[in-house]
Structure formats: structure tokens, C-alpha cells
């Protein structure tokens, strides 16, 4: 009985009520479908964009970790080493070293250039083999 009643009632509700007609008109209008397409397109593009930016960031980041980070660490260590040596030399009170330190304070490049040959003779001896 209930199924019969439903069968009867279905066509009556399918008859265009005001609300259904409005919703149909809205959902089938070209503006809405266009809007939907644009929305899905933008979503797709943003997704792609995000993914490729992420990939680029990943590549740049790993490259940075491999190429630049060790370089920064080693440069820093080298500088610390140089400073320590200068300090030690000035503590020992060797006059030329003290002079060098003053030079270093005034013009860091000059002192670096002065200390360079010593460093390199040592480093080359170790690694040229």
C-alpha cells in the first residue's frame, strides 16, 4: 500500500513546483556551470602550482644542504681557527704577531692575505697527494 501511495505521490511532486523550477534554472544556467568549471580549473592549477613549487623547493633545499651548508660550516671553522691562532700569538707576546693583529683589526683583508701563504703551504702538502 505504501509503495502504491508513493508511486502516486511521485509525479505530483515532480510537477514543477516553484522551488524546483528555480533550483533547476539556477543549476542549469550557463553562469553556474562556467563558474564551476573555473573553480575546478583554478583548483587544478593551484594544486599543480603547489606541487611544482614544492618540488622546486625540495630540489633547491637539498642542493643547498649538499653544496652550501658544508661550505659555510668549514669557512666558519677556518675563521675560528685563524682567530684562535692570532689570539694565541698575541698572548705569547710576539711583536710581529701583535702588529699583525692590529692590522687585522684595521683591515681584515690585509691580515688575511698575510696569513694565507702559511695556510696554503700546509694544506697543499696534505692534499696534493
Amino acid at each position, binding site marked *: 500500500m505504501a509503495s502504491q501511495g508513493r508511486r502516486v505521490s511521485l509525479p505530483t511532486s515532480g510537477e514543477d513546483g516553484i522551488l524546483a523550477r528555480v533550483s533547476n534554472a539556477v543549476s542549469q544556467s550557463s553562469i553556474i556551470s562556467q563558474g564551476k568549471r573555473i573553480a575546478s580549473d583554478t583548483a587544478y592549477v593551484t594544486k599543480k602550482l603547489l606541487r611544482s613549487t614544492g618540488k622546486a623547493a625540495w630540489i633547491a633545499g637539498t642542493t643547498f644542504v649538499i653544496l652550501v651548508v658544508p*661550505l659555510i660550516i*668549514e*669557512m666558519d671553522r677556518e675563521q675560528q681557527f685563524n682567530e684562535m691562532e692570532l689570539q694565541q700569538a698575541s698572548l705569547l707576546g710576539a711583536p710581529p704577531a701583535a702588529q699583525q693583529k692590529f692590522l687585522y683589526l684595521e683591515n681584515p683583508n690585509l691580515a688575511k692575505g698575510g696569513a694565507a701563504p702559511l*695556510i696554503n703551504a700546509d694544506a697543499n702538502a*696534505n*692534499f696534493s697527494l
Partner: protein
Amino acid sequence: MAAPTSFNTTKPTVETKEKVDYFNLPCPIPYEEMHREALMSLKPEVFEGMRFDFTKGINQKFALSHSVFMGPTEIPSQSSETIKIPTAHYEFGANYLDPKLMLLGRVLTDGRVNARVKCDLSDNLILKANAQLTSEPHMSHCMVNFDYKGKDYRSQFQLGNGALFGANYIQSVTPNLSLGGEVFWAGQHRKSGVGYAARYSTDKMVATGQVASTGIVALSYVQKVSEKVSLASDFMYNYMSRDVTASFGYDYILRQCRLRGKIDSNGCVTSFLEERLNMGLNFILSAEIDHRKKDYKFGFGLTVGE
């Protein structure tokens, strides 16, 4: 042939500075070591896994070396994906070093033997021999070189197994520029070829160019920025396989370490750090990332002795 001409253009600037004595030119660098500065900076021995090297000098001339390597090694395969299998081997070596005679021998646990001889036959003539013996058939190689060093030139004659003959000659043209050429004939593969090379070097920079009839064009440039830092770049073009590679790298030689980094056009980033922990104790870190193939190689090692 583009390479030599490009170097010729830089020649006049040198000549104008001072009168060059063309009968007293310096001896050039051997032909095969043409690119050595660029190779030193751009081609460190990258490895994957762990290695431990120990060298012990018995006396002034004689030294023994032991090295252990553990890690994955790549197997060549047809597919694009690389296949790696874990391997471990131990290498025993004996070195005899004398100014006149150098003997090196290496034995690996998998049966490979490597032997090198360098012997000064006279002041100008040097004999070099290199042999690699393996248990697999057709994989053993042997090569004998005769190097003749003249006042401003060097020539070399090569003999190898598989009826390989080669000869090369390099001549200093100006104090900075040297030009060379080579011919080779490989009887087994029925191949022959010629090659030309030019090298322009000052104390601040080195530029080299090489072309060969096998279709290879190689250019390299190394700039010494300071005593500690040098920057290198190279370009390689293979006409036969249409392969183009360019790479750029830095080489820092500091008091405590040597750091080399490289990036190339195949999306491969490499860095190699040798850190001196103590006298005769070096720690090695090696990293290689191939973004395109998604192949990541990291290795560490310890070198004791030397």
C-alpha cells in the same frame, strides 16, 4: 677545431707585455693530463657506503696499504632504474716508491689484481705500465706507455692489449699556450681516430679545449680566485650520442679540510669533503644527489696514514 682558435685570440696580449724567447719555452703538461686541474676540482672520487684506508710505511721506500669497502655497488643494466647490490671487499696493496722506480700493486678479495709501474729509463724517457687482471674473461687490460720529455715538448707512445696503438704529442707554442695532437688505432674494434687539444694556462687560470674524431668536444676552464679557492667549469659534447653536459664546481683548500662541490646540467649535485682530524687521519664525507634519476649516494670514510 673551435677550441684552438679561441685560445689563439688571447695570445697577442701576452706577447705585447714582454719579448718572448721562443727557443726557451717551458715543458708542457703531458697530453693525457691536459685537463688535470679541472678534473681535480670537478671529479672527486665519489663513493657510496663506508670505506677505510690504512697505509703503513715499512721504511722510506716501501709501504703497505689495507682498505676495506662496504656498500652498495651499481650493476649496469638496460633499464633506466639503477640496480644496486650490497658488496664488501678488502684490498691489499704494496707500494714501492723511489725517484727512479715506482711499483704499485693492488689485490682485491674478488680476485682482481691491479699493477702499475713507472720507471725512468733515462732522464728523458719514462716507461709506464698499467695492468688490470680479473678472473672474468676479456676483462683484463694491459697498457704500456713510453713517454719522451723534450725541452719544450712531450710525446708519448701507447701500446695496449687488443692491438691498441696510440701516440700523442704536445708542444709549447708560447709560454702560456700549448697545442697537441693524438692518433690512435684500436685493432680489435677496428677503430681509429685523431684528436687535437689546446691548453692556455697562466698562474690565475687554466683553459683547455679538446676535440677528437670520435665526436667528443671537451672544454674546461679553471679560475683560481685566491690561494684557497678555485672555481672550475667544464663542458662536454658528444656528437655521436648527442650528449651535452656542462658542470660548475668549486674547490676550497683550507687548513683543516678540502671541500669540493659540483653541480651539473643533468641535475646532479655532488660534494666531497676531506676533513683533517689529526696528522695522518682524514675523515671523508661524500654526497651525490641525482635529482633526475632519484639516485642518492652518501658515503663516509676514514683514511689513516700517508
